[in-house]
């Protein structure tokens, strides 16, 4: 189902619209955000130089560090009184990034999410359970507003408490589930334990995001839940969910091209790659008033393709995300950087500075084990001291990452040392997931 005819415009019209909006967005950013003003001035570029979509390539990239360095609102184009909503996400140093939405931004975001919901075949006849967290994380609210716009009956249950999730699914006859794919698989395990069959539920459709999932994982989810599993993609920096999404044909994620321009670059050289190449996807916002993003580097690896889709949408599609161009891990939908863990461990006495993170899958949920070396023999006097140390590490990491980790103490010099960059992360998550 197509929510807005803008999704089926001929390519020529889409590109014309994009160029008009791009020229507005660049001029707006130049005029209202000192960061962009200085950046363009430094290379002698004026907004008026943007005459074609190809001219976009003249604009320097924006990266996550720019948001962090300008924390909290340095990249905002409007004063806070124009902002009607803040959201945020975690960063490598424990300092979050903050984004802000004007009333128009909220309207556009809601539009993007309504399109996503419709593309998954969801209508006002449906009841949707939002098992994404509500809060600074964009997932919960983004989906909520999109679903509501379409007229879906929304259950804002938020994340966690699997038994209650399943109870509501049964009692309110939920037809649509919103969650991270790994949480869905976890739910299927709980269903098994509780003796709930997919026939006991009313689920038809899943809108899953926050992290990628492979075709194998999709197959498993569809078989166990008896649903059509659709994936979507978004970034806090761009708005949150609603940047791109699959339709029921599962032929890649349609990008809301009237709101975002996507490019694929070589992550090493920054050069724009020819059509069909795999590389890092870069986005430019086209209508943002709160915090415009010019050529934002996502670090996500994918490719773009332009063939028309059977659903009738003419917007460019992107492949499912194949990986990251940096060391960021996505654990249960949460961005985790090894450096965050490192910062925590540095502040704890009695352990060495070497560490390793082992990521595994247990019951379809990501688990992190933090291995550190015990250096202070003094705490061996009583076992409770050892427990105190591991609890301290676990607690401090949880404060930063919001994730419960397992802490394993090792003897000194057990962890591999290398001359160059140490291997900090061992990802043992089974390839199927």
């Amino acid at each position, binding site marked *: 189902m197509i929510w807005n005819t803008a999704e089926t415009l001929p390519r020529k019209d889409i590109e014309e619209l994009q160029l008009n909006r791009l020229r507005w967005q660049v001029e707006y950013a130049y005029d209202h955000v000192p960061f962009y003003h200085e950046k363009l001035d430094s290379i002698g570029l004026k907004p008026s130089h943007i005459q074609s979509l190809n001219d976009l390539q003249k604009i320097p990239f924006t990266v996550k560090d720019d948001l962090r360095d300008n924390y909290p609102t340095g990249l905002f184009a409007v004063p806070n009184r124009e902002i009607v909503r803040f959201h945020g996400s975690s960063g490598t140093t424990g300092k979050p990034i903050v984004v802000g939405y004007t009333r128009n931004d909220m309207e556009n975001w809601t539009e993007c999410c309504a399109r996503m919901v419709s593309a998954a075949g969801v209508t006002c006849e449906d009841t949707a359970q939002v098992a994404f967290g509500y809060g600074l994380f964009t997932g919960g609210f983004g989906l909520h507003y999109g679903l509501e716009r379409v007229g879906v009956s929304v259950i804002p249950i938020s994340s966690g408490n699997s038994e209650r999730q399943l109870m509501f699914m049964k009692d309110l006859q939920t037809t649509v589930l919103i969650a991270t794919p790994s949480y869905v698989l976890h739910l299927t395990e709980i269903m098994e334990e509780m003796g709930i069959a997919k026939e006991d539920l009313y689920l038809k459709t899943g809108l899953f995001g926050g992290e990628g999932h492979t075709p194998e994982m999709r197959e498993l989810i569809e078989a166990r839940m008896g649903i059509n599993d659709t994936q979507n993609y978004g970034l806090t920096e761009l708005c949150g969910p609603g940047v791109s999404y699959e339709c029921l044909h599962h032929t890649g994620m349609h990008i809301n091209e009237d709101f975002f321009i996507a490019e694929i670059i070589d992550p090493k050289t920054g050069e724009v790659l020819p059509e069909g190449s795999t590389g890092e996807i870069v986005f430019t916002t086209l209508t943002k008033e709160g915090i415009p993003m010019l050529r934002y580097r996502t670090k996500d690896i994918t490719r773009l393709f332009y063939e028309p889709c059977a659903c009738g949408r003419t917007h460019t599609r992107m492949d499912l995300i194949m990986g990251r161009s940096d060391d960021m891990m996505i654990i249960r939908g949460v961005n985790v950087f090894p450096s965050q863990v490192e910062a925590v461990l540095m502040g704890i006495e009695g352990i060495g500075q070497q560490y390793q993170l082992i990521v595994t899958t247990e019951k379809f949920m990501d688990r992190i084990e933090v291995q550190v070396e*015990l250096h202070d023999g003094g705490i*061996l*006097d009583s*076992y409770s001291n*050892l427990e105190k140390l591991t609890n301290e590490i676990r607690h401090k990491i949880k404060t930063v990452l919001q994730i419960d980790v397992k802490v*394993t103490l*090792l*003897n*000194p010099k057990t962890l591999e040392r290398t001359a160059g960059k140490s291997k900090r992360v061992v990802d043992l998550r089974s390839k199927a997931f």
Partner: protein
Amino acid sequence: MLVKQINVFLENQSGRLAEVTRTLGENDIDIRALYIADTTEYGILRMILDKPDKAVEVLTASGFTVSSTPVIAIAIEDKPGTLDHALSIFSEGSLSLEYLYAYVGRTSDDAVVVIRVQDPQMALIKLEESGIRVLSSEEVYGI
């Protein structure tokens, strides 16, 4: 009158304990008593050795996390009721016991009880007042 007990951190991994005993054997260090506190995650190996200082040196060099703790060793008659009598001194004196372990010596008829308490100096006074024989480190290391 305090005796040195050596503590070694053990990862819960097969072969770790054998590595400790091999290191000690190769360095001609004799184990007098040995006790392991373990859980599913880790073990702490506590030992009374004939050459405790050397043991700390060689085990540390072999990559173990090691420490030494002062403990009290007492000799009690190896017959029913004697341990109970010794322990009553601790409870009556409100001395908090961290842990203890016992073993039977090779030559005497006495059993040796190794005790770790919060306040070893106070414990020594109470034990002596009660006439319980506290072993010197020479006696213990040479058992």
